[in-house]
């Protein structure tokens, strides 16, 4: 990278930190004994239908976002956390409180351990809490699958072995956000703070312990044109599939509070991706990536101005198709959709690239 690319990155970090600004101090001071949120859904576990419990632990938040590196440009997960780190006991309480939602649920169940950062970061979830939680999961015979999330720097051979050892033959999936396989985009536009190689290594290590990796792919980081986003999405999916990810979760950017993305968006300098872009990414990827990898997409705030959206008329139909595709993994459900805004999207793909003018009609009204 040349000096000026470094300079762009430096300015993005600065702006991301400034956007985060006061929000860090607005977080509740007191650590909680309740998780930030917990909910259950119906899900497919292997070939059976079961319940999935998602737990978002209330922690001090992602280390990458807390320290001088500023965090990612689109992420405000830090807001879900607390100013002071909860103790190991408090975290265990959060877990047991959340698990009560599974009371009476039959086998099989899947438990997803989310934090506003990395579950495997000992600075965020102390080792003692992690061990205790894993033990409780191991003891629950209904639990067939455990999903957790972490940045790659916490994915060591040691920790992977520990996971495998404590959870025995339960399915384990580790979520890691690579977001983009393009180094320039990942550093300048996202400020992810790790390399594609770090990510690749993490996959290899996880695989050696029979742990699958769910790779998060971000659709339309800031500073990209719509077509940049489309092409980067397709390329990234292709790359992470080749690196050995077992599941690819496609995440269109939604405009979160106190982020650089929000600052751009509020000035008409960013528009979340079109649903057509997301659809096209899925269409092209499902045909190219083969059967070994699942591609799922459950966009946040789809059809809303802060989320991926189209013209307003077709948003629901397109979102529905995307949802359907995630369940059945059959690209044919993505076909046959049409709306008069399709030609506008095609125009945007071409004209944004040549003009570099952000095409956002939500603000101008036409």
């Amino acid at each position, binding site marked *: 990278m040349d000096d000026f*690319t470094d*300079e762009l990155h430096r300015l993005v970090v600065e702006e991301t930190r400034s956007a985060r600004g006061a929000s860090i101090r607005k977080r509740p001071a007191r650590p909680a004994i309740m998780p930030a949120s917990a909910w259950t859904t119906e899900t497919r576990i292997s070939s059976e239908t079961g319940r999935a419990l998602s737990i978002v632990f209330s922690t001090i938040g992602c280390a990458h976002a807390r320290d001088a590196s500023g965090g990612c440009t689109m992420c405000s997960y830090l807001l879900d956390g607390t100013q002071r780190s909860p103790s190991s006991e408090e975290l265990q309480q959060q877990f047991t409180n959340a698990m009560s939602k599974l009371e009476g649920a039959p086998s099989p169940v899947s438990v997803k351990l989310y934090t506003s950062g990395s579950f495997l970061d000992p600075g965020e979830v102390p080792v003692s809490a992690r061990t205790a939680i894993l033990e409780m999961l191991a003891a629950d015979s209904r639990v067939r699958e455990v999903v957790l999330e972490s940045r790659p720097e916490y994915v060591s051979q040691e920790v992977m072995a520990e996971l495998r050892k404590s959870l025995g033959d339960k399915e384990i999936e580790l979520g890691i956000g690579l977001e983009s396989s393009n180094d320039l985009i990942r550093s300048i536009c996202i400020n992810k703070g790790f390399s594609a190689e770090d990510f690749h290594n993490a996959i290899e290590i996880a695989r050696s312990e029979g742990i699958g990796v769910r790779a998060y792919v971000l659709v339309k980081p800031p*500073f990209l044109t719509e077509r940049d986003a489309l092409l980067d999405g397709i390329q990234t999916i292709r790359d992470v599939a080749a690196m050995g990810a077992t599941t690819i979760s496609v995440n269109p950017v939604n405009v979160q509070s106190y982020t650089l993305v929000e600052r751009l968006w509020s000035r008409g300098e960013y528009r979340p991706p079109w649903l057509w872009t997301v659809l096209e990414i899925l269409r092209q990827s499902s045909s190219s990536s083969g059967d070994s990898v699942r591609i799922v997409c459950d966009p946040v705030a789809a059809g809303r101005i802060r989320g991926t959206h189209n013209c307003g008329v077709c948003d629901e139909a397109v979102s529905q198709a995307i949802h359907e595709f995630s369940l059945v993994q059959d690209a044919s459900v993505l076909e046959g959709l049409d709306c008069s805004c399709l*030609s506008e999207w095609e*125009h945007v793909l071409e004209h944004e690239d*040549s*003009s*570099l003018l952000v095409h956002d009609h939500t603000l101008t009204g036409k």
Partner: protein
Amino acid sequence: MTEFLINRGHDGPARSGTLRLKSSTTSTPALIGGTSSTDSILGIWTLGRDSRPLSVPCILALPPLSDYTDSMLELIRDDDPILLPSLPSSSTLGPDFAAALLNRQLVLLQNSGDMIEPSRVIVRIPPQVKHELLDSIVPRFDELGVRGAAFVFNGELGPNDRDSLALRSRLPRNWLTLALGRIEPYAIPVFYYLGLDLIDAGRALGAAAQGIRLWPRGYESIPHSEEIRYCSCHACSSQTNLADIDREALQTVLVAHNMGLCRTFLSESVNAAHLGQLRSLVESMTHSSPASAAFLRTVDKELYTFTEEFTNTTGSGALPLIGPESYNSPVVRRFREYVASRYVPPSYKKLILILPCSARKPYSDSKSHKLFREVTDAGLGASRFAVAETILTSPLGVIPRELERSYPASFYDLPVTGDWDAEETAIAADALSVHLAKFDKSAVVIAHVSGGYEDAVKAAESRIQQSIIYTTSGQPATSRESLESLGETLKELVDVLSLKSGRSLENKEILRATADFQFGSGSGEVLIPENASVWGKPYGMIVSRIEKEQTCAYVAASGALSLTLVGGRLVAPLERYWVRFDGRRIKGGSVFAVGVLDADPKIRPGDEVIVIGTDDEVIGVGRSEMSGIEMCEFEKGCAVSVRHKVD
């Protein structure tokens, strides 16, 4: 190798030019279309993403945030102008971010080896770039051989668009300029006027994709529109009902219609520029939307030094000054500034007579001014020479009688109603107070004006040091009562001020005032000294000679002075309006920019200029075809049309 040549002639910053590519030539101004619009003059495509439009000359955009491998660069055809990569603009990230984006382009160019030929390169200038940075980095691109820059506009005609324009105004004058982004068809004249050579018609294409039909004012959504409007254009009239055709067909029709509208506006602009009427076209277009009106007014204020530099000092044909958007148009404001800073009244003027303007130009030819003349002649008799006549008018301010035929004083055309708005009154009052301060304090001001004119005098009153006599008492200036009152007042003043008798010095006054107006104050006395003999008629031609040698001639039709070589030698020591020519003799009838070593930066297109050779001798006089700075920056083109030269 790409070359951009600017043709002769200016109408404000607008110019016509020729973009010469290896295999084709395009005249500018021109529209930029997309990849599919065969209808547009220039295509635009993105490397590795679009297929290159086949039939038209094209601009090639390099995609942002790519690694430009050699194999990628090899895809670049050796013809298309190349748009360097940047990122969508971000006011959020501010000027440092913009600076880095600009610098990255420089680095890319420097590192591209000979893969990217600099003469083909168009730099993208982010709107947030600081002026100082632009001023320091553009010469570095220029040194490499870059001759083009692209600016992005969001079409709101607000601060963002003005920022981009302000940056555009700082470019070397020989660079090709692109306006990219969203440009409404009705804004094409103003963008062309402000010196943009290639204009993105993407808005027309984008609207068509949205089912929107654009009109000179506003737009229409089809088929949502309740009643579809009638359009006579070929595309629309080939369909019986636009609401009935399928989407694809509709889009085709709308592309043709919307592009047609852009082309109509562009063609109208080009034609207006040929006629020297582009500014009035732009002014009339400001009624398309309140934003356009505000835009032009603000641009007039913020970019005056830019627009003024390219505004002709001579012209022919009527100059309509219809509304407030004319008050500070460059030609109008410059006239006020020249009169304020250059006009010096003869010291023997003891009376200043303020008169209203007339619809007919020059004023002397109007009925009202003929009446005023009779009354003044009768009232003052042989002391007439002691009166300085000053015509009060909007929006030019004050016009000394001697300059009534100068440009644009005798060419402007406006609705003379006598009702002035506050801005007009303030403009006239300011001009008047500055003007009167040049006269002796003991002189007497006679305000023979009523209505808005009188309000302007009253508004200036506190800043006027002379005593003022109003002679109209609420009646129109041409009423019998007013004229009688004027006559009596003048008669009385002859006695009260014991005015002397003397000969009329009108011809000499016109020559000197015009010389001062053209070359700056003091020029009149140098060019038409005491020993000059002056002959002619103010409404025809006035010639000045020194010892039988003609020095200059004034032609009433243009209101301007032209010099002879002898006259040029008289003015030369003042070091104004000079062009230094690289040679001892001029060959042919023109001095070309390539032969200009240096030139007075005050020179505007249309000015009378003096050509000085390498021997420091005056070797020619003539009319400038471009601004003095352009003469220095341009490598091609006619700088001066020579009238007289040393053989």
